[in-house]
């Protein structure tokens, strides 16, 4: 039996039924991960020793008849910007090439407490800045569906290892689409929860007011089960919401009769023909299941993109200032004084894209420019939130493309950052507005590459998004 192609909940049941042990599954996963990593490059670190230790603990619990969590013993991968105690956490940057955090992130701890088995840390765009996973210090990740193509980014490694059965699920982070877009490119499910649903403690910040951790899974049901583990109030994160969370897996198969879906025309303007037709087909399928669909206009969408790049870069310029060579990570050699050490360390330690964003952000916050850029961007943010509120007064969800095309070729867009940025149009607004959004496969393009549909909901509507995504999945969305 091909255990590795099973979903997380399926393998969890087999482990529980003792059809296969957690150690055996872990060994299989790591074996495939190691083998495929030579081409895919999805992992920066594979932590075999720690994984096998954890897996054998799980097996011991099973042997002693303990009640286990629904995903106990399941091997998973963690994006390399989320802290894992004593395991390299590099943010795919030379700056943190040797950084081993002395603590676990909240999500790491939650998953460990739920007996999930961490098998490795996934590759990503450096400090999560990018949409193609080409800015990693550890080299680009390749799309398992076509290795000439990018996997998307910034959680490219997380999406690729799930798509290539190199892990049963993965954790990513999403600041402007970094979970959803790679999920779309690799043909897997990616959820960005409502801001504040998953603690950011231990997530190495890119843009604090936009960052949100989310699951990348083989199907929506797995996403629900992972959310059940990682979504909880955390007093260590002041922005963590202290509200009751539902059981996300409870209502997976409920019907969607009367569900009101909005299609903002701005999000369809740039979409390729393939993307357009797959999304339309999918929406029609939902209509047949009882949903009511209506085209709307969301004029704030265009401004959202500009606001996103100003706010995220401004926050990043401050968040990344601590990487100065003083305390941990990379320190340049041969400096003359402290300023020289800062300059050389940051000059050599950061890649081009990261430096570009730091420059943009520093500029936007500078005295004399603050009002024109940062303050204006915050006003736009308010406007975008308002537009979303207005849509959600009449509709339950917004459906749109995740990205205008399928996965593009490696190197194709790297030389034109502005075009790369412009393509984030469909994904950034969910972060700007703080609302949840999911990407779920809805078919392939003529290039045989996967296409995802994005569903956006009002705050705390993750369970609804997962349910609708599950409908699409059952309708044959996968592949």
């Amino acid at each position, binding site marked *: 039996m091909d255990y590795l192609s099973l979903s997380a909940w399926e393998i969890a049941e087999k482990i529980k039924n003792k059809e296969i042990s957690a150690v055996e599954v872990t060994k299989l996963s790591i074996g495939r991960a190691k083998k495929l990593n030579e081409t895919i490059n999805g992992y920066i670190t594979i932590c075999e020793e720690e994984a096998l230790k954890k897996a054998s603990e799980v097996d011991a619990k099973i042997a002693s008849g303990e009640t286990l969590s629904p995903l106990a013993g399941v091997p998973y991968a963690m994006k390399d910007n*989320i*802290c894992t105690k004593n395991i390299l*956490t590099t*943010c795919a940057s030379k700056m*943190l090439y040797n*950084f081993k*955090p*002395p*603590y676990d*992130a909240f999500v790491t701890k939650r998953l460990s407490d739920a007996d999930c088995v961490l098998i490795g840390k996934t590759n990503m765009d450096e400090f999560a800045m990018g949409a193609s996973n080409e800015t990693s210090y550890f080299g680009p990740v390749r799309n398992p569906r076509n290795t000439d193509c990018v996997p998307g980014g910034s959680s490219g490694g997380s999406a690729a290892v799930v798509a290539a059965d190199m892990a049963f699920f993965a954790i990513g982070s999403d600041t402007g689409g970094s979970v959803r877009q790679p999920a779309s490119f690799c043909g897997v499910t990616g959820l960005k929860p409502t801001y504040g649903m998953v603690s*950011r*403690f*231990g*997530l*190495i*910040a890119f*843009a*604090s*007011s936009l960052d949100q951790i989310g699951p990348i899974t083989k199907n929506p049901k797995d996403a629900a089960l992972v959310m059940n583990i990682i979504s909880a109030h955390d*007093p*260590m*994160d*002041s*922005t963590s919401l202290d509200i009751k969370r539902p059981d996300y897996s409870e209502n997976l198969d409920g019907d969607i009769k009367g569900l009101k879906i909005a299609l903002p025309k701005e999000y369809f303007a740039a979409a390729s023909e393939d993307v357009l037709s797959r999304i339309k087909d999918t929406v029609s399928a939902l209509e047949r299941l009882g949903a009511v669909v209506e085209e709307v206009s969301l004029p704030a969408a265009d401004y959202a993109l500009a606001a996103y790049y100003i706010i995220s870069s*401004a*926050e990043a*310029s*401050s968040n990344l*200032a*601590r990487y*100065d060579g*003083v*305390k*941990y990570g990379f320190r340049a050699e041969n400096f003359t004084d*402290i300023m020289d050490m*800062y300059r050389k360390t940051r000059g050599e330690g950061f890649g081009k894209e990261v430096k570009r964003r730091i420059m943009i952000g*520093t500029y936007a*916050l*500078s*005295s004399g420019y*603050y009002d024109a850029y*940062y303050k204006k961007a915050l006003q736009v943010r308010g406007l975008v939130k308002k537009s979303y509120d207005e849509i959600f007064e009449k509709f339950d969800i917004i459906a749109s493309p995740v990205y205008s095309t399928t996965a593009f070729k490696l190197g194709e867009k790297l030389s034109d950052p502005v075009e790369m940025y412009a393509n984030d149009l469909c994904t950034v607004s969910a972060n700007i507005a703080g609302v949840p959004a999911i990407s779920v496969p809805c078919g392939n393009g003529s290039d045989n590459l996967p296409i995802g549909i994005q569903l956006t909901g009002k705050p705390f509507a993750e369970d609804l998004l997962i349910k609708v995504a599950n409908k699409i999945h059952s309708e044959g969305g996968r592949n």
Partner: protein
Amino acid sequence: MRYETVIGIEVHAELSTETKIYCSCKNKFGGEINTHCCPVCTGMPGSLPVLNEKVVDYAIKAGIAMNCEITKNSKQDRKNYFYPDLPKAYQISQFDLPLCHDGKIDIVVDGVRKSIGITRIHIEEDAGKSIHDAVEGKTLLDYNRCGVPLIEIVSEPDMRSSADAREYLDTLKAILEYIGVSDCKMQEGSLRCDVNVSLRPEGQKEFGVRTEMKNVNTFSGAIKGIEFEIKRQKEILENGGIIEQETRRWDDAIGESVPLRSKEEAHDYRYFPEPDLMPIVISDEHIKEIKDSIPELPHVKKQRYINELGLPEYDSGQLTQSKVVADFFEEVMRCGVEAKPASNWIMGDVWGMMNERYLTMETLPFTAQMLAKIIKRIGEGVISNTAAKQVLESMFETSKDPDVIIEELGLKQVNDESAILAIIDEVLKANPSSVEDYKNGKDRVVGFLVGQVMRASKGKANPQTVNQLIIDSLSKL
């Protein structure tokens, strides 16, 4: 031309909360290097701050004590700059919405009362410390102080002399101490100030160009720094020069301020709202609760000492300058001692002996009750004034109970009339010429004879009794 000095002061006060401002590390001075810190206060990647609400309460308390308006919807901001002792490369502070604003405190200089405006009070985190050349050619870092909560108290440019500044700082310190939000330990750096000084021709309305002086860690340093800066600026102006707007650093060792950076080199701190923390929202009820917890403040207490206890203005000022002193004084009174004797003893012999021994009110080796006992024993006629001073001296050394000391040193006054009469008889016999003088109307020999009796009794005889009995004996002769 005559110049008027304009001074504004920013005071950074470390708050004495149990834990630090954004993590649960103990907020304690000293300790082994890098032991009072954690991933949060050292800004490790992925760590997040959580605001200690006590810090907000303490700041509001200071604000109310300084007659400020409290900002009900406030927030925190990041102040970005690179320095090795600032591990996140930004300090979490407050920019445009400080917790408290538009207050004032009153000071009295040379008998004249004036108000010094408080522009704002905001909360922020302290940075660590750089240790230069402990290892030759290297700088080491101690992050223990990172995240220690601070309030920055910014005054209006309302001071006109170094004496104003001195009085302002003393008053400010007294208030902070009274309300218990800061230890105000200068030697531990829990109060630090930046001083802004400018001069303008007398009568001119517009302010002159100011300089800011940083790194002033003592009040006396601040005063010296102000005086130095006034002199420096005056010399420049009198020689037809212009003052550069700049930041200077006070060097206490050489007693001079030296240029740190010019206006052009000034930092652009790129303030923006701290996205990791939620806005601070304060209710009216909460403000009232804090207001009700504020004890009697120094200037109110001083007025009460004058009006109700009948103490002179000087005594009242001295006794209320610090809360420890006022508490000590009030405790002595609570034990049944009158205000004036209590004040005299504290300001006189206690402080004299305390200073000789380099002690402070915090390190006195005895309690207020023990001092009260000494004063009461004088009133009861158990010991003389002279003996009381001996008892106090001994108490400074041994911390023993006054009664034990009186017993051990045999200082008990002799009140027994027959014993005293016996001594008087001896003395009169030994000084016939004095007795003769008395008979001839020279009353002043009484003092001499009392002195002789006191000496013969080794100071133990009750002087009043001796005085009376001598007059009785002489008149019977």
